[in-house]
């Protein structure tokens, strides 16, 4: 009886409820492929590119937790990536230039500390006001990061703030490379793109599995209920504000995780990463990939980053083509790429 949910065909927004053997196999296959990837393609450019895609995929996935699974819209989710990146970077240059895990912890915790009161305020308002508030706060973070030159390095990014850091770091003039240690073992160093790739892949896979568990957990069911019908959710006894806040914090924490990974990859963060337009692009990744499926946003991030990279290398007028592709996708792929696959998958009998 208890596995009855597994037989559920599931609506468009909600797939992968319960790790079906097939999806599990697919997941293992994809991960295995990604593990082998840097061994096959040794060009650091591609390793760097895939690392970026994974990081932005994680960011887009975190937005999807909010948008696709809780029904809340954040216009500027990138700002939480930025906050974490700044926090992790500043921690590394000012406090402890050795520990990667500590920097990661600091980045994520800092993001959550900021996100908590902001979220508390935001969940007190309804639908559109929530989304607009994310924008107000996002622009606020952006302005602070940009204007607080002495701490953040202002418009130039963290590289310009290095000189205020620890003498050792200041001398080097850059956020230092960090050793990837696991207990007593040294697994690598962030100066090697392959090591960064594996670090990011590992974190992203773990985050994906945990998030997947979460959206399929009883907690996920609560968030789903809020997404589907907020009023009714409160009338089955859900403390809507509290669970919205939990969803928000999970999403911000994941975005923060992506932010710390960004810092290990780029070793620099500038305010332009926190700009409103970048936020729209994260939203685009989610929608192009397919809202409500955790893997869709990764696909969306991949498509969008590759598209922008390739087109901007190919022509100076890349904006025209990016615009055309985006318009085309929104018009003709209403549910994103994930939606396309589920449209193909869906048997006609299910639509009776």
């Amino acid at each position, binding site marked *: 009886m208890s596995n009855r949910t597994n037989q559920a065909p599931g609506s468009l927004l909600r797939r992968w409820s319960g790790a079906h053997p097939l999806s599990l196999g697919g997941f293992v296959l994809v991960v295995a492929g990604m593990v082998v990837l840097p061994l096959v393609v040794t060009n650091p450019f591609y390793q760097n590119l895939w690392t970026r895609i994974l990081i932005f995929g994680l960011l887009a996935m975190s937005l999807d937790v909010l948008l696709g699974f809780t029904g809340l819209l954040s216009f500027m989710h990138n700002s939480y990536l930025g906050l974490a990146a700044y926090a992790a970077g500043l921690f590394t240059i000012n406090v402890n230039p050795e520990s990667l895990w500590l920097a990661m912890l600091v980045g994520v915790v800092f993001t959550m500390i900021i996100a908590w009161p902001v979220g508390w305020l935001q969940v007190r308002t309804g639908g559109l006001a929530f989304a607009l508030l994310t924008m107000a706060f996002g622009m606020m973070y952006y302005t602070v990061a940009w*204007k607080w030159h002495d701490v953040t390095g*202002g*418009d130039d990014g963290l590289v310009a703030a290095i000189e205020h850091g620890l003498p050792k770091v200041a001398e080097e003039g850059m956020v230092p490379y960090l050793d990837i240690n696991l207990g007593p073992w040294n697994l690598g160093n962030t100066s090697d793109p392959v090591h960064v790739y594996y670090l990011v892949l590992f974190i992203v896979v773990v985050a994906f599995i945990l998030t997947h568990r979460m959206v399929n957990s009883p907690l996920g069911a609560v968030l789903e209920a809020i997404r589907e019908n907020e009023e009714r959710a409160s009338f089955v006894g859900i403390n809507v504000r509290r669970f919205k806040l939990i969803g928000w914090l999970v999403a911000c924490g994941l975005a923060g995780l992506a932010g710390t990974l960004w810092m290990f990859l780029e070793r*620099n963060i500038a305010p332009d990463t926190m700009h409103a337009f970048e936020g729209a692009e994260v939203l685009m990744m989610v929608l192009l990939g397919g809202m409500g499926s955790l893997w869709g946003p990764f696909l969306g991030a991949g498509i969008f980053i590759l598209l922008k990279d390739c087109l901007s290398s190919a022509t100076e007028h890349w904006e025209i083509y990016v615009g055309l592709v985006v318009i085309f996708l929104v018009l003709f792929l209403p549910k994103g790429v994930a939606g396309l696959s589920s449209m193909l998958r869906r048997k006609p009998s299910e639509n009776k």
Partner: protein
Amino acid sequence: MKKYLVLALTVVLALSLAMPMAALAKKPVKIGVLVPLTGIVAQGGQEMVMGIKMAAAVKKTILGRPIQLVVEDTRVKPAVAVSKAKKLVYKDGVVALIGVFSSGVGLALAKNMDQLKVPFLSTHVMTTKFYGLNPLVFRCGQLANDQTAVGNVQGILATPDLKKRKYYVLVHDYSWGHDAAQRFIKLAKANGITVVNPDFDRAPIKTTDWSTYLTKIKASGADGIYIALITNVIPHFAKQATDFGLMKTCRLVSGAAPGPLELEEGGSATYGIFGASDYAWDLQRFNPKAKKWNAAFWKMFKTIPSDAAAHSYVGAMNLFNAIEKAGSTDAKKVAAALRGISFDGPYGVVRISAKDNCMRNAAVLTETMAAPANPYGAKVYMKVIKIFPAKVLGPPE
């Protein structure tokens, strides 16, 4: 099931896209050009590309191989510039990077050179942080902030009308602007020039409406304005200052050369901008090489020769010659060859100091005014009023 098929297909597609499109042709020497082609400074980026393209056309071959420029758009964003640099080095296999407009982008990029392991020569970055930054990082282009400050202060001291004025300092809010302001204020103080606001004003780089700053300047009682705004914005600022009637009472001294096309658009409103820079096409009155270069540039691009184009041209020539001199495209050898190399271009000998990897060259003090009849159809031009020898501008070696 089809979901996984689609997924697999997408992965395959992504892979095939990402795989090197074709085996790299061995023949040409590839040079990566990083410039902003979109965003507020796109015009400056275009001019830099012109200068570098012209250098490639003049040089034709390096080590007997053709030169191939691979141009990438940085969008003036550090993260984009770094990822584009990685693409250029790892995917396209360029042997050197050249260009970069903004100091912020330049700094971010410079810090990645240990990993990228190719020489990077900036033709536009002006921040003094570039002195001796990294063995692989060079600057050969626009004057650095300290050099500009020396030029401008000397220019002010030599002009009685400028000398007695009180200056209000307004800069763009990023490392170059801050650096420029600090350099100027320090030197001005040492030479008895009055600065009204020693903790200078910082305007966001996207500022389009300067009215509040102009109001402040008016209220401060200053009768001179020292600006360090990016090339393309200087004429806009001058135009609004004229609109506000400020140019009647104030003199404008600029820490960077104004863009010629922007001057044309601003028209007579942009008259009266003083400033030290590498180059102005008016230098052709003094230097036959400048005349020749201007003519060649005009023939090639049919547009007014700009400072950005000229110093990018010189920087590129130095880089090309260094590769030739090194006899190989090995990064260390090219870097070694770049140290101490010099090129006698449109504005005289430009030498990259072996001490700090940054160039030394002569420069000009100019004032914008109505242009005499000229082959480029320019109505406003930067008139050369003084030429500084390289020794004067320093910094000492």
